């Protein structure tokens, strides 16, 4: 796993609510059995018309940065981790929204892509600033749990202590679980025969 500490970058602004994982990566690109190369397919149907020519309405055109600023309820819909892989593969390190779908948020955290949940008021301010000054640099400090940008001010964001440590040190859940298989085996022995097992 990569590590996250401070992310400082211009942003790609897509001020649309309810961006679902079918928009992030359409299902027809999920047939491959590896984790590589999904960045090229990111927001594919926004970037290209049906015949493969670049779309004139592409909302991402001309924008650069490793921080994606999106509308409310980002990542809703399908559980496909390919959405997080595609964002990560395309170079994104953080997504800023006022709400994230649960499965997407977990997928992002498991791929060192930081979901930064801000208040609706802050997202509104940040969106206005980015529309006015597209080159504005945003600073995200994971240790301090703050996001700031000139003109939008600073806001604190939440993340649980365990996940924060994982991201800062590059640990993953699977390493934790594998290291603690003894507890799992002990649990199985203890609960044999109870409902569900």
């Amino acid at each position: 796993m990569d590590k996250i500490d401070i992310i400082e970058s211009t942003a790609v602004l897509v001020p649309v609510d309810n961006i679902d994982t079918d928009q992030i990566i359409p299902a027809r690109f999920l047939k491959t059995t590896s984790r590589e190369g999904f960045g090229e397919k990111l927001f594919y149907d926004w970037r290209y018309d049906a015949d493969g020519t670049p779309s004139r309405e592409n909302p991402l055109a001309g924008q650069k940065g490793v921080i994606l600023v999106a509308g409310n309820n980002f990542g809703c819909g399908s559980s496909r981790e390919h959405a997080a892989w595609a964002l990560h593969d395309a170079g994104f390190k953080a997504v800023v929204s006022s709400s994230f779908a649960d499965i997407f948020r977990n997928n992002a955290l498991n791929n060192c892509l930081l979901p930064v949940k801000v208040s609706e008021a802050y997202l509104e301010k940040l969106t206005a600033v980015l529309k006015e000054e597209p080159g504005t640099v945003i600073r995200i400090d994971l240790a301090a749990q703050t996001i700031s940008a000139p003109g939008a001010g600073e806001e604190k964001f939440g993340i649980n202590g365990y996940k924060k440590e994982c991201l800062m040190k590059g640990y993953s859940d699977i390493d934790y679980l594998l290291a603690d298989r003894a507890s799992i085996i002990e649990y199985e022995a203890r609960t044999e025969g109870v409902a569900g097992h």
Partner: protein
Amino acid sequence: MGKTLFDKIWEKHVVKHIPDGPDVLYIDRHLVHEVTSPQAFSALKAKGLKVFRPEKTFATCDHNVPTLGQDKPIADESSRRAVEQLAANTAENGITYFPLGDPGNGIVHVIGPEQGIVLCGQTVVCGDSHTATHGAFGNIAFGIGTSEVEMVMATQCLMQSKPGQVRITVNGRLAPDVTPKDVILYIISKLGTDGCTGCFVEYAGEVFSDMSMEGRMTVCNMSIEMGAKGGMVAPDETTFEYVAGRRFAPSGKELEEKIACWKTLKTDADAIFDKEYVFDAADIRPMVTYGTNPGMGVAVDGTIPDSAAGCDAATFDKALSYMGFRKGEPMTGKPVDYVFVGSCTNGRIEDFRAFAKAVGGRRKAEGVTVWLVPGSKEVERKIEEEGIGDALRAAGFQIRQPGCSACLAMNADKIPAGKYAVSTSNRNFEGRQGYGARTILAGPLVAAEAAVTGRIGIGKQ
């Protein structure tokens, strides 16, 4: 303070709690399909590991499969490879696998309950957001990503923070033309697509206690469409009756003991939820969607509103423009090009029975393409056994073979750009059913009316 059904199941499955962090949660059933598992199997192999508890893991191929000519090799090369990879991975790890054509094959969320793999009071996961379906049996069932699939394969556990809890009560009795699909589309239209984000939902009230298991599955299935991690209904006699006699379900004395235990799975009277919503069955009409998220729904005899819950004005207008609809227009009478009946939401035998009954003696409309796709081989078998297949074929319809099909259009079943499709599936997102496809979500009765008249509407039931 009392405990909720959710609390009771969750607590039984906590292996350990991490301070200021998630719980290590034990998983009873892991369902696997070909799209979200290959990267997990490879990562496991790279670590020199095998699936830790293969007897709790069950696999099927459904997303990539064709719905015609399943006896022949899959024509699309990458789809064929994905399916072959699943066969190899499951064989290598000793996992029960239902290959294409097997009597147990079908959509993962249809076969789980049908084969008695999923019981009550369990934790159930799958790399698929519609895993919420299995909450119908009183389970904590939720979708996970591929990294989490790998964790469950490696350790039979996940690290999960306990979510918030919401109870949605629907009192009263449904009108004869209102199906479980209409109930959930109605609820989502009221709460919006992120109305329950960060939460688990318990469905309560007469409407759900009167509902069949298949109806409860339809409702729980779409919990994710309002942001909920999952949804559940407390198990009761309807549940136990459904489970008894299924292939992988316990039987005899073992089943009796389980049922005695499952009967305790109820929310205590003094339990407190983070949020409660109460609706009246009398307010629910047959529903259709008019926009590009499942929250943009309206009664079939209603008009397109000028806003939707959880949808800002710009997003709302963009959706209507994609659909080619205008605010204030009636939905009834709108022309339809395609009808799709199937998916993990409405691809079960009761859906085909309802569709066939609503078709009545009428014929398929000229100019409408209708795809009837059973959710599983077992559903396909019952369609033929009950004579539904013959009746529908005589009326000009074709019954296809099981799979996810046009719900997400990963196979050849794609709705062409600009065409209108009435679909009994779960998502009307832009491009979900094919590039530029315009999806109108509905239940099987509205689908039947569209199939025989070529228009949106509802017949007299």
